[in-house]
């Protein structure tokens, strides 16, 4: 167990170094001179040199990288190119609560709807319930969220025009607040955001449940005279959920890439929105910071799901 942890932690450090290096080198190699762009028409050499120095851009690349990493370790993400003197940290601080809120709800909806849907499909396998829910899952899995979002918006507009239904088409309302209007605004983005992960979990849960229901120990549980409810929900589910926990890390990937689309389609000013806006304005420090942030989140999420896995599956502790 300890050995496993150490191995994972070493892997984690390696991945984080890789992530920071890739983000740094892409930014470093990027064409164009950001300082020059920053100054625009007010270009003068003295100020150019001063700014270049203050951003540390006059150093050789490896020194820049080390400075970059050390600043990262101190939590210093540098300054935005776009808004002079605005720390990147402050920009992320603006978006992070919203993205966390969206992500948390997205994950919850994925699990709360996806897993039971998969179980239901497995228990009713071969019936129309199975066909319907798995058809839905395949559809949601294949349709990109930006299409779902657009279709959702078309539907809202149509409802508004034909029946006078008033439902917000975009926006997020107040972060971490749940007045009726906030809830109304948030439901759409959350469901569309969660759709792909929901489909993924539903399919995985179905497969895994069917697999488990075929196991000998389920027959043993029935032979012991346990009630069907207990056979399914205690004996089968404890086992069927193990593979679901192992892919929680994967679903984190869905959440991160989904955020770019959901936040942009619905104009939600979270990290995904900030990233895309920074790309439009070539604000490299912000792009780098969000990339490192999101990649770190995914790595930590994977580690967490591995740890959770060892808790749920007793077989892991020994090996």
């Amino acid at each position: 167990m300890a050995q496993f942890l150490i191995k994972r932690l070493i892997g984690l450090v390696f991945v984080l170094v890789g992530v920071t290096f890739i983000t740094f080198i892409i930014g470093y190699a990027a064409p164009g001179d950001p300082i020059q762009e920053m100054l625009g028409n007010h270009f003068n050499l003295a100020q150019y040199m001063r700014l270049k120095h203050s951003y540390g851009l006059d150093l050789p690349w490896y020194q820049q990288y080390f400075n970059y990493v050390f600043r990262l370790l101190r939590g210093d993400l540098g300054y935005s190119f776009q808004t002079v003197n605005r720390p990147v940290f402050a920009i992320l601080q603006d978006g992070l609560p919203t993205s966390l809120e969206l992500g948390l709800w997205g994950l919850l909806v994925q699990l709360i709807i996806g897993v039971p849907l998969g179980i239901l499909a497995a228990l009713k396998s071969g019936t129309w319930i199975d066909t319907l829910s798995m058809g839905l899952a395949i559809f949601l899995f294949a349709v990109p969220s930006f299409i779902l979002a657009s279709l959702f918006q078309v539907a809202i507009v149509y409802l508004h025009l034909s029946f006078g239904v008033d439902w917000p088409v975009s926006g997020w309302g107040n972060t971490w607040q749940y007045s009726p209007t906030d809830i109304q605004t948030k439901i759409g983005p959350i469901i569309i955001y969660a759709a792909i992960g929901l489909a993924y979990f539903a399919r995985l849960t179905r497969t895994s449940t069917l697999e488990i229901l075929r196991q000998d120990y389920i027959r043993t549980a029935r032979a012991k005279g346990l009630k069907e409810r207990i056979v399914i929900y205690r004996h089968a589910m404890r086992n069927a959920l193990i593979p679901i926990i192992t892919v929680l890390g994967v679903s984190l990937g869905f959440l991160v890439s989904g955020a770019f689309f959901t936040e942009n389609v619905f104009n939600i000013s979270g990290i995904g929105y900030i990233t895309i806006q920074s790309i439009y304005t070539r604000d490299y420090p912000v792009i780098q910071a969000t990339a490192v942030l999101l990649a770190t989140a995914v790595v930590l999420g994977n580690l967490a799901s591995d740890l959770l896995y060892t808790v749920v599956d007793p077989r892991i502790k020994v090996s």
Partner: protein
Amino acid sequence: MDTHDHKPETNASGFIAPTSNAVEPEFELSTVPGHENAAPIPEEAAIADSAPIDPKPKKSRTPFQESLRRFRRDKRAMISLIVILCIVVIAILGPFIYHHIGGLYKQQLGTHIIGPDVYHTYDHQELDRAHEMPSPQYWLGTDGIGRDILARLMQGMLISIVLAVVVEIVDISLGITVGVLAGYYGGWIDQFLARLADLLFAFPGLLFIILVAGILGGWADDTLGAVPVIGAGGNARLLLISIVLAFTSWPLMARYVRGQTLQIKEQQYIEAARTSGTNDLTILTRHIVPNLFSIVMVASTLNIAGTIIGEAGISYLGLGVRPPGASIGLMISDASQSLSAYPWELLVPSLTLVIIVLSFSFIGDGLRDAFDPHSKD
């Protein structure tokens, strides 16, 4: 503990994601488990079930032919295959035919008289004919600046297909080379692959592509844009994206190949070949690579679905194909500017994308079921 070395599966936010090791069963033998006295089929029944073998013994087939036969019987996959073939034909030949259909048209805003070879091109604007529904002149209507939707759609499909082909060529060749070497020799190349794959999993889905497309996009416009044909017409970033998509997909392919190579390596006949003095190169090319066919085919088909969605997503975000170029993602993005008034313009590219992606997923699933011995149970 290794959660990565499993069957490939694609998803709508792009790229292959590792799934659980549970294999999706095609035929449920013990159905309706919720029933009161359900239990797995007793061994005897299963044996008795398999007892009546084909009444007329046919010529024996190789496992490959057997798999191919199973695949051909998969209706969903076969229909999808036909759909994809149709789309390929339409994307390649469609524009040439469409350029010759329709009469001359006198522009209202200009004074020119133009033929279908002009107004049926994907980048021709007819500003006073914006937002039209399908008509004999514009078969699928026009978009917000009076461009022919059908022409743009065909160009978009072509982009998707070309991109998929380019990415898969890189994906397969790099994936097989590195995967086989890592699986056969192990050592540093195996370590390298493992670390690279770890790194890749930290950049989920589109993050890496967004990062690269975002930062290098401008540079791509300037330099790759100068490349004739492939870089021209707003497609410069497409080149960049296909490089990045290929780069992000091959480590996964290599992992599957590595796993398969490890399995094949343990087979007796490899051992026999080695003891009889066959050199490594012959073993690799004669015995190992041909046996990778099925896993490579399954993984790449499923990866194509991810690639196409990935490109659409990037173009949708405005980081991919740029106007006047056409891409399905770009069309969806254009249409969503005015989606409330003209949902038709959104529906056409969306539906096309969904059909393409679903078809590739179904073909991939069908191939997996047919070629993966695990899915037989």
